[in-house]
């Protein structure tokens, strides 16, 4: 497969926005894969944390913005905890989520939640869940 790298896509304004929201620099990552290795939910992701960062480095933002992975990341911070470069993939996923949520693209609806869950869920699950999945 041929990949065409152009300066304009490498310096995508969306990547800059992601870096501003997250406070992270995607160029800090040297692709060791520790984040994916420690990630408890990588098995359920379509794009693993390491891949997500590589795509951002390459300016392939639309695939990242559409990836299911952002909604699966639980922000457990195992990635950040084990990153030798101090990069927080969780914060980058958060930024990707925020771009979608701030544009009104919610990932959950109250009416869609199971009654069995609402009946005895801890309040913190709802508060945290809505902050992560609803704008």
């Amino acid at each position, binding site marked *: 497969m041929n990949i065409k790298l152009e300066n304009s896509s490498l310096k995508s304004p969306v990547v800059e926005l992601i870096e*501003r929201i*997250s406070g992270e620099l995607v160029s800090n990552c040297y692709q060791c894969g520790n984040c994916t290795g420690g990630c408890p939910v990588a098995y359920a992701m379509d794009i693993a944390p390491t891949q997500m960062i590589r795509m951002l480095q390459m300016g392939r933002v639309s695939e990242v913005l559409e990836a299911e992975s952002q909604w699966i990341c639980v*922000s*457990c911070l195992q990635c950040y905890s084990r990153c030798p470069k101090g990069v927080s993939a969780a914060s980058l996923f958060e930024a990707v989520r925020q771009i979608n949520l701030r544009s009104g693209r919610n990932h959950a609806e109250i009416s869609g939640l199971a009654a069995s869950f609402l009946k005895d869920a801890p309040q913190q699950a709802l508060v945290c869940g809505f902050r992560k999945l609803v704008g």
Partner: protein
Amino acid sequence: MKIPYYPGCTLSTVAKGFDASARESAKVLGFEMEELKQWNCCGAAFPLTPDNLAGLAAPAKVLSNARRMGDSVVTLCSVCYNVLKRTNKVLRDDKEKRAVVLGFIEEDYDGGLSVVHFLEVLRDRIGFENIKKIAKRPLKGIKAGAYYGCMLLRPFEDMGIDRCEAPTIMEDFLSSLGAIPVDFPDKIECCGAHLSMGRTDVVEKLSGNVMRSAVEKGAELIVTSCPLCQHNLEKSQGAVFSKTPGYRTVPIVYFTQLLGLALGQDENELGFDKNLWDARPLLKERGV
């Protein structure tokens, strides 16, 4: 000794046993958990978005309220601990952000509060050795798996309660009660957290990993300090049991329930009846 106490949303509702057992235990140990006169939800997640300070307003309000009552605030829930401690660090170290957040909530607070977890109070102010001396009903070698989860420990440089990859504070606590702590590989792994809102398959997988890991190492019960971990593990255990040959179900309890028990509280008043898997038959069997 009085310590300002922030219960947080879940300890006033589905985790009442966690709250009550801690308050009663504190009395026996010689201090009072003085609930904040005014408090609100901490937000249940520290915002990973430094570009937007709105998420710091709620925990900042809690901290400024707590400051009026003392120089430290204690929490029981790991998530509250995480959110308050990290917010406090931002308010203490970043003058610019502090001015914006405090201006918004119309409070005056300098970040001078010390945010501590109840386990730290037991370790650093009371001392596990003293708890061992006071415990009138030791747990008679019950094998307990200390499950830390995420929020108590990470990120290390902000939380600092213990070593990030190999913590022992909860094991040391369990030893002081006369239990035998069981080390297991998944003790610092995630339970699935808020994914219980829609991805119960992922929660079941993650919580299942934790429980299988603990039970395989011989744990007879699993101990937690987070109501969401407790909920996710309990809710997943039925499915884990039916899908894992040889798996035996274990009670998932709060560390303060065991503390209360060891300090002599009535086992019927510790909230064990609210747990899906009741610990009392195990306690009876072992003569505790």
